[in-house]
Each structure stands twice: as structure tokens, then as C-alpha cells.
């Protein structure tokens, strides 16, 4: 794990002092509300539906046990005893008081955390594959790059007032677990010949105009990364639209300008930046590398486990192969039956911290799918880990199944939302509460957004649900066949939407149709959809309903 240097600590503290002064100036009138807003946003503070919301960065999704315990303390002391993990590897506290926020930031700084640039029209928290450093087949741990970008992008004087927010994700292998193609910039670490570099994708995004990112550079040598990022950002800062916030993301610039023209502009800026930008200080690179040295894994051979049915089910779904055969990656689901996706109580955070400390080399990860990961667990420890999770209501064996749903906070919390998301996720979880039935249905990603901004990634759900407002009534549109992995695909709309009470039965009809038409248990929902197309699913959704209405 990256350890703060004296500089990192001093910077974060100075930033908190600056924010305190900004809050004071706002209160005294030295800052207008319009002037204060971008400043508070760049420190992670939103004004939501009922209260302020503080979004704390978990850079590249990596946490240690001390940090998790501090999040638990913050949740109890300044919030309502829980936190909400988001689809961008952040944690949100939904009920802090404005006056407490500088103190919360100090408490975060005590464990080398911050809320810098988790919001605002700047370069946001950099995300990475949540299995980084633990999974086989990586060219390099993507967090080396993500931490470098965190440092470079923090308080960058040129890129703090961009046309719109700007999101970067990094992966280290061909398997995309970070929704790379739906970020403003997606970087995949690749090797060409003997040289490590990046495949660079730009212009992806979800929101009201979903777009799949396009490759702008097949191979960018590692040493050129920051000059190239500056070239992309400068091109965007100078030419991105500022007349309409809904057309201000770089995806629109790529779409309206054309990739080739934009590429030429980026390359021209790149040539200029390469001349003026010195190489990264080797001492900084070395310090970052120290932080991501692979943990010293036990060489003890794993014994054959005698597993209870519950542990067997847990291992089947929540355990992923580690690069080391004696170890596994354990994914802890935050999606128990009837719970809110991403919500974790302070007591649960402490259990997770204890487990990380004892069984996972003091490491935790937060995935964009809003789950928590113990990345380095010895196989022999699985029964103990499972038992502890079970006691904390954290052992739901549903990773990758129908109830492992991504949902944005929706109208229960968010000021932008037009419909509720969380209750839909909870009702789907309850409708498919039987885990055996879930296993029978197999791999399925349902993603729910409570408005067109698509924080719940509905466009890339195998089943996507978008909650809208139709003349004051919640209405839910369905999309099918979306995929956020390396196969990047946008879902297709099925047709007219469904009311709040109709949407869960509609999802049930989709599942029944899939079970009827699949060729075997091995054919997943997505595979079946790709084979037969949308027609049979539309029939299941609408013919049945229309027949009843007739």
C-alpha cells in the first residue's frame, strides 16, 4: 500500500486548512455561493436532497485495516453509523454537518485519506481493477500508474476548471473489471516488444449520451504518459463545450469533432508537451513502487477443505482464483437480501478490517460493483473468513448473480434523481431470495440508475433499469444486453417503461423467458440474449401484459 511521504501529509493538511478558510470566507461573505460551490465540490462536499454529502476518495479502491476502522469511526461519530460505497471506488457519508466537515477531513488525513477532487469539474479519483496485484495475467499492477496519476492530477493548476468532470480508469491486463471503455480516459497497461506502455482509450461515458471509448493510441511508451495526458486534457480544456453541461464531456467533443481530427490536435499538443515536460523524478516512481510490492505470501500448501454446503456455495460465487495457487481472492457482497447495495455499517467495517489484518495482508479493495474484497486470503483460512462474515451478515453468496445489483442512491438521497433505485434493488433481491434459484439463473448483472445521469451504469447491465419521472410518476425503462467488460456493449431499450409496481414483475418475466429459451445451464443470460436477440424478451415483457390489459 502506498505510504504518504511528508509532502503528501503536508499537502493534505494544507488543503484542509484552505478549506476551513473557504468555509469561513463563505460565511463572512468573501465568497458568493456560486464561487464557493466549485471549491466545496473539489473537496468532496455536495449539497444533496436532505443534507450535505461527503464523498471520500478510496484511490484505486485500495484500503488498509486502519483506514477501514477510521471510516467506521467517522460513520459513528459524524454520521448515522454507516457508509455507502459507490461505483467509482469512493465512500459517501450521507449526513455530515457542514461545520463538522473540516474535522472529518482531519480524521481522514490521520489515516492518509482525503476527499480531494471526488467532485467538481476536475480530474476525479482515479479508479483501477479491484483485483490489481492479486490476479494472474497482469502486465503490471495498474495501481502504480493510478497513484502516479493521482499525484499528477491533484491540484493540477491547468485542469481544475474543466468544461465538466473527468474520469480516468486503469487496468493491467486484458480482463476489464474497471469499465475502462466507459471512462473519459481508459488506460490499459500493455507490453510491446520488451517495453511497457499503455493502450489509451478516450471519450467513453454513460450518462444521457452513452458512448463506448475509442482507442486514440495503440501504444504509448510509459515515460510519455503524463505528457500525453496533459495533451488530451489541454485539448479538451480548450475545445470542450461550455455552453451546455450535458454536452460538455470529452465524449461529445470526440463525437462532434471526430476521432481523427482530435487525435491530430492531441498529438500536436503532445509534441509540444514532450519538449517542455521533464521526466518523472525517479525517486517519486521508486517511492510509488515501494508501496505496491507484492505481499510476502505464505508458501504453505493449501490443504483439501471439507466444506459445509454454505461454504461451498460461497466459494462457488464469491471466491476468485489468485495468481498464487494457495491463495484466493474473496469478494464480500454488500447486497444481502433487502439491504441497500453499497451500504456497510460501522460494525461491519470493523469486521472487514479485522479480517483484512488477520487474513489478507492488511488489504481491502472496494469494487465499482460496490462490493468489498479481501485480495490475498490463504485457502486454508476460507472457513474462518466465511464464519466471521456469516456472523456479520456479510456472507451472502451472490457475487455475479441476479441479486448482486449495482444501484445508485436514487431519489432516497440524491438531488438529481428522478426515481427510486434502492427499493427496486431490494425488491429484486427479495423476489429472487432463494440462492439455489439464483445459482440456477447463473451469471447476471442488473444495474439500476435513478436518473439519466446513469451513476448506476444501467447502459452496461445485462439487464439495465433506468428510473425516470413521467409527469410526476416513476417510470422504469429496461435495456438488455449491455456489457461493461472488454466486450463493451451498450444495452438496447426494450420499449415503453414500467411503473414502480410493474418493474419487478417485468424483470421476473425476463428471467422466466431466459430460463425457457436457454440451451443449457451453461448458456448465461447474456449469451442467450446475444444468440436470440431482443424479440423473445420483448414478447415476454409486453405481450403478456398487453394480453392481460385487453
Amino acid at each position: 500500500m502506498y505510504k504518504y511521504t511528508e509532502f503528501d501529509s503536508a499537502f493534505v493538511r494544507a488543503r484542509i486548512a484552505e478549506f476551513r478558510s473557504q468555509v469561513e470566507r463563505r460565511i463572512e461573505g468573501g465568497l458568493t455561493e456560486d464561487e464557493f460551490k466549485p471549491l466545496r465540490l473539489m473537496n468532496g462536499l455536495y449539497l444533496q436532497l436532505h443534507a450535505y454529502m461527503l464523498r471520500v476518495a478510496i484511490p484505486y479502491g485500495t484500503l488498509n485495516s486502519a483506514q477501514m476502522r477510521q471510516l467506521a469511526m467517522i460513520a459513528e461519530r459524524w454520521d448515522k453509523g454507516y457508509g455507502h460505497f459507490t461505483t467509482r471506488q469512493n465512500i459517501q457519508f450521507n449526513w455530515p454537518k457542514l461545520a463538522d466537515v473540516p474535522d472529518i477531513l482531519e480524521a481522514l488525513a490521520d489515516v492518509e485519506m482525503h476527499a480531494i477532487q471526488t467532485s467538481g469539474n476536475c480530474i476525479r479519483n482515479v479508479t483501477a481493477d479491484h483485483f490489481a496485484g492479486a490476479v494472474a495475467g497482469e502486465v503490471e499492477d495498474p495501481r502504480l500508474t493510478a497513484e502516479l496519476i493521482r499525484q499528477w492530477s491533484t491540484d493540477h493548476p491547468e485542469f481544475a476548471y474543466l468544461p465538466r468532470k473527468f474520469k480516468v480508469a486503469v487496468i493491467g491486463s486484458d480482463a476489464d473489471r474497471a469499465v475502462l471503455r466507459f471512462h473519459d480516459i481508459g488506460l490499459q497497461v500493455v507490453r510491446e516488444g520488451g517495453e511497457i506502455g499503455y493502450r489509451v482509450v478516450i471519450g467513453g461515458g454513460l450518462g444521457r449520451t452513452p458512448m463506448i471509448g475509442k482507442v486514440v493510441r495503440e501504444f504509448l511508451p510509459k515515460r510519455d504518459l503524463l505528457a500525453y495526458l496533459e495533451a488530451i486534457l489541454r485539448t479538451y480544456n480548450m475545445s470542450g463545450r461550455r455552453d451546455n453541461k450535458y454536452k460538455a464531456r470529452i465524449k461529445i467533443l470526440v463525437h462532434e469533432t471526430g476521432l481523427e481530427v482530435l487525435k491530430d490536435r492531441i498529438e500536436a499538443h503532445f509534441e509540444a508537451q514532450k519538449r517542455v515536460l521533464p521526466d518523472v523524478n525517479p525517486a517519486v516512481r521508486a517511492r510509488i513502487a515501494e508501496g505496491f510490492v507484492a505481499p510476502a505470501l505464505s508458501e504453505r500448501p493449501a490443504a483439501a477443505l471439507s466444506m459445509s454446503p454454505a461454504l461451498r456455495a460461497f466459494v462457488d460465487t464469491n471466491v476468485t482464483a489468485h495468481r498464487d495457487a494457495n491463495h484466493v481472492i474473496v469478494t464480500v457482497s454488500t447486497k444481502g437480501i433487502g439491504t441497500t447495495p453499497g451500504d456497510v455499517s460501522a460494525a461491519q467495517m470493523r469486521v472487514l478490517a479485522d479480517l483484512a489484518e488477520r487474513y489478507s495482508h492488511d488489504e481491502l479493495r472496494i469494487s465499482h460493483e460496490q462490493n468489498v474484497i479481501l485480495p490475498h486470503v490463504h485457502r486454508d483460512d476460507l472457513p474462518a473468513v466465511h464464519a466471521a462474515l456469516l456472523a456479520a451478515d456479510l456472507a451472502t453468496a451472490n457475487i455475479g448473480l441476479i441479486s448482486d445489483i449495482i444501484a445508485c442512491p436514487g431519489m432516497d438521497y440524491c438531488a438529481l434523481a428522478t426515481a427510486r433505485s434502492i427499493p427496486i434493488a431490494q425488491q429484486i433481491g427479495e423476489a429472487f431470495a432463494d440462492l439455489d434459484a439464483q445459482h440456477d439463473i447463473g451469471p447476471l448483472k442488473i444495474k439500476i440508475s435513478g436518473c439519466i445521469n446513469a451513476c448506476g451504469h444501467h447502459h452496461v447491465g445485462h439487464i439495465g433499469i433506468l428510473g425516470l419521472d413521467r409527469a410526476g410518476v416513476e417510470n422504469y425503462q429496461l435495456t438488455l444486453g449491455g456489457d461493461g467488460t472488454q466486450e463493451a456493449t451498450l444495452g438496447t431499450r426494450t420499449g415503453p417503461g414500467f411503473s414502480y409496481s410493474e418493474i419487478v414483475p417485468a424483470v421476473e418475466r425476463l428471467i422466466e423467458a431466459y430460463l425457457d429459451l436457454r440451451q443449457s445451464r451453461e448458456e448465461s443470460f447474456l449469451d442467450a440474449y446475444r444468440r436470440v436477440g431482443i424479440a423473445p424478451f420483448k414478447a415476454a415483457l409486453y405481450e403478456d401484459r398487453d394480453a392481460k390489459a385487453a
Partner: protein
Amino acid sequence: MTQVIDRTGFIADAWAGVEAADLSEYAGGAVLLMPVDAAPEDAVAFFEAAQMIVIPFASSADGRGFSIAAALRGLGYRGHLRARGHVLVDQFRAALRQGFDDVEISDEQAARNPEAQWRTVALDLSYQSRLFAA
């Protein structure tokens, strides 16, 4: 009226009363006004003649001026560079780091943000200078 601020605090405007000519009409005067939607390369021909280039900030939320300034410096402009308009105390550090020599704000804003606020801006902590130090 306006107020000019540099690293030392509030200062008198050395170019007070000098008319700035827009890039499209520039004919060799002391002060060139660089619109934020113009291409920085188009100003290169005037780098010798222009003692000062002014980059307007219509709104503090519009950060194009920061890129224009860096681009002009990157292209070799060594004269005086000024940010004029709605620049926040909180953007002062960024403005100086991007190559501006000073900022020029309205008297109304100067009244809200007196000199003391600008002088307390910390100028030394920067990830970027540390990252690229040889």
C-alpha cells in the same frame, strides 16, 4: 476601475490606461488581448511586439485561460502575462504556476477579497513541481 495583484500583493497597474488590442486586430501595440477561443499559435508572430498579453476570465468556472497561458509560455512567450476578470483567490496559486505574472480583478471583487486574503495563499506546495523535479 480594477485592482492588479501579483506575488507581492495589491500593486499599481503599470499598463493603466493602455488600450489592449484584440488578437484579430492587433497591430503591434504594447498590450495584446488573447481571446480564450483563439489558437495560441496565432499569437506567436506578436511575441516580440507585445509587452503584455491579457487573457480574459469571463467566469471563474471557465478554466480555458489556464491552458492558454501554459500554451503561450510553452510556445516561448517571455513577456508579461495577465489574467483579467473573474479570478478567485483560490485560483491565484494556479494562475501564477501556469505562467501568469499577475491578475486583474474588479474593484467590487477586490472589496470582497481584500489584499490579506491573497497574501495568505500558499504558493509552495505542489505535486507537479515535485513530480517533475530532476
